[in-house]
């Protein structure tokens, strides 16, 4: 006999109970245990509803965090207004095309010369398969995604101190690296050096593994041969007829292999956020911002420069200046979502706790530069068989990245000619746009010496430290600053809550901006209903 009170709950009922009792975090933990969600804290769009009639929210910043807040809060029944510093929406969700101008502090204005259809994403440019919030809203808002080619064995790696500065195919370095490591481990095992660390059974398995993984020969050595050729490629590839037999190429030495530091690239592609499958919006990242703008654009006041944010028991008051007319204005609402980057917010008069002010002012922003180079033709495809992916270098440009769209297309195409953080980014940012292009062409020529300058048409660059509305690329946290300030930054302070990538553990990613926004508006809604 079954007592209905003691029927075990279904998994769905259990998750609902956990969600009610412990909130979204507990729900996420439980779902992870049940194997539902393992990769993002996103558990679906917030189902906010029942805002008090006439309730108002002011959102500062029309980047993706601000526009998502406006979109979901409007659905929940709030009256929302958004103030935006720039004369465009999207924030760092940004794409430049032919005819667009780029205006930095202290640099001559650039007018982008790219052919129709070509573009540069100066900000975010790729979306990992597990960034479920971004992917969800792309689907919901009808943003068409295509594959972003991330992992490409046929790209190059260049290190000034390796191979005499001659770029090597990543494939060759990868195969050489595991071959040499496998050979050395096999030698150690066979010499008995690891007998105290591994069982006899595991030793046998490891030797088998090293032979197969490293493609070792019968003497357990990594040497030139047909088997290695099947991974590494050929001096003469397999063909038909009388000369069909392939000829393997020489393998690299251990010292040469180590001098390339290829383990860094191998490790890079193994990072969760860098793994395939990767996506991009077709035609430019700003299609996400445009899709949000289509929903909330009528709530956004552009060219509106906030100077002061105050609050009292009844609501918030924001002072601003119209960028075009210079006229002063004021906006009021009951609640405020502020997505202004910390670099700028730290300079504004904002009425929040000292702890939150300290958190805002303890958050430095990394610098980055992106340079787009339009080439007359896709020589990397036709002449090098490179279809998307990245060639890395230890020069300032850090990498060049090949376009993932319109493979085999005719006519001009844009490749990413530089994407450094740190020293390389500072150094390129300090150059005039014209000199940045010259530097990018000089450095990128190491990969494609015959074509790079000959096929060049025009270039465009964005130095994030000089973008007047953010003065940096994205927030840089450390373990220490997280411990000291993170909770103070994200806490709701009276009627004010902050959102954006800087208020997340997914810094520099749109996923972080969106997750932060959803968390902020969920807490705001709870506070508003309880008020």
């Amino acid at each position: 006999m079954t007592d209905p009170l003691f029927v075990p709950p279904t998994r769905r009922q259990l998750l609902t109970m956990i969600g009610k009792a412990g909130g979204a975090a507990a729900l996420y933990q439980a779902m992870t245990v049940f194997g539902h969600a393992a990769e993002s804290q996103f558990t679906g769009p917030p189902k906010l509803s029942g805002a008090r009639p006439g309730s108002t929210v002011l959102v500062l910043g029309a980047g993706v965090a601000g526009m998502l807040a406006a979109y979901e809060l409007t659905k929940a029944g709030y009256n929302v207004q958004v103030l935006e510093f720039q004369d465009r929406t999207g924030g760092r969700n940004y794409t430049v095309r032919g005819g667009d101008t780029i205006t930095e502090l202290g640099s001559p204005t650039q007018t982008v010369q790219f052919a129709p259809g070509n573009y540069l994403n100066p900000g975010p440019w790729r979306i990992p398969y597990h960034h479920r919030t971004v992917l969800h809203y792309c689907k919901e808002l009808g943003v068409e995604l295509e594959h972003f080619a991330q992992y490409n064995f046929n790209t190059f790696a260049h290190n000034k101190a390796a191979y005499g500065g001659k770029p090597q195919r990543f494939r060759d370095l990868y195969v050489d690296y595991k071959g040499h490591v496998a050979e050395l481990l096999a030698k150690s095992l066979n010499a008995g050096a690891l007998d105290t660390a591994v069982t006899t059974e595991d030793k046998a398995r490891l030797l088998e593994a090293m032979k197969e993984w490293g493609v070792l020969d019968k003497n357990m050595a990594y040497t030139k041969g047909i088997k290695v050729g099947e991974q590494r490629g050929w001096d003469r590839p397999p063909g038909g007829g009388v000369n069909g037999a392939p000829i393997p190429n020489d393998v690299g030495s251990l010292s040469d292999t180590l001098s390339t530091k290829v383990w860094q690239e191998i490790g890079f592609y193994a990072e969760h956020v860098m793994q395939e499958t990767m996506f991009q919006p077709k035609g430019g990242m700003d299609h996400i911002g445009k899709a949000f703008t289509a929903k909330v654009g009528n709530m956004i006041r552009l060219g509106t420069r906030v100077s002061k944010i105050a609050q009292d028991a009844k609501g918030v008051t924001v002072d601003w200046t119209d960028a075009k007319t210079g006229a002063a204005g004021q906006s009021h609402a009951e609640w405020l979502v502020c997505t202004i980057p910390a670099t700028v917010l730290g300079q504004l008069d904002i009425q929040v706790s000292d702890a939150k002010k300290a958190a805002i002012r303890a958050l430095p922003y990394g610098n980055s530069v992106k340079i787009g180079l339009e080439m007359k033709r896709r020589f990397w495809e036709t002449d090098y068989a490179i279809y998307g992916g990245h060639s890395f270098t230890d020069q300032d440009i850090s990498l060049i990245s090949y376009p993932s769209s319109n493979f085999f297309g005719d006519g001009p195409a844009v490749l990413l000619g530089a994407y450094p953080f740190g020293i390389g980014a500072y150094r390129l940012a300090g150059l005039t746009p014209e000199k940045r292009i010259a530097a990018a062409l000089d450095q990128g020529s190491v990969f494609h010496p015959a074509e790079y300058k000959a096929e060049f048409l025009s270039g465009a660059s964005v130095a994030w430290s000089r973008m007047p509305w953010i003065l940096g690329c994205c927030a840089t946290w450390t373990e220490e600053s997280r411990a000291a300030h993170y909770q103070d930054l994200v806490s709701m302070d009276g009627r004010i809550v902050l959102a954006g990538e800087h208020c997340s553990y997914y810094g520099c990613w749109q996923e972080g901006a969106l997750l932060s926004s959803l968390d902020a508006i969920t807490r705001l809604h709870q506070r508003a209903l309880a008020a």
Partner: protein
Amino acid sequence: MKHTRGLVAMAAVTLVAAATLADPGFAQDRPGPGGGDTAVADSGKEVYEQICAACHMADAKGGGQTGARVPALAGNKNLANKDYPIIILLKGRGGMPWFTDILTKPQIAAVITYVRGHFNDYKDPVTVADIDRIGAANPPVPDCNCGH
């Protein structure tokens, strides 16, 4: 002589955070394995031109407008006290990061000496001993309405 990076050893003074800005931290989008070994020249002028000018501009007059400003270093009275720029280069302030992970102590001393002497009229040099003194004392970052 050229240095690569990460050479300001502060082990004794748990002062500086571990993350580097070339490798901006947990899970961030970043270029990948390239670029990190690029070298910064040693003279104060060169460090200024290669690093500082990215934000403070070639003329050290900064940029932007009230509320969204990169401060000018030229004619900056805060620099009269040489400890002030040392603290900021070691610890960062506002949107500006610390520079201990990409500049050496001699480079930090040289660039502060250059900025104080060339763009201002403070001629007393900053030395590595000054950097060590501040590192050991570990003073708080001066409060600011950052950008002014």
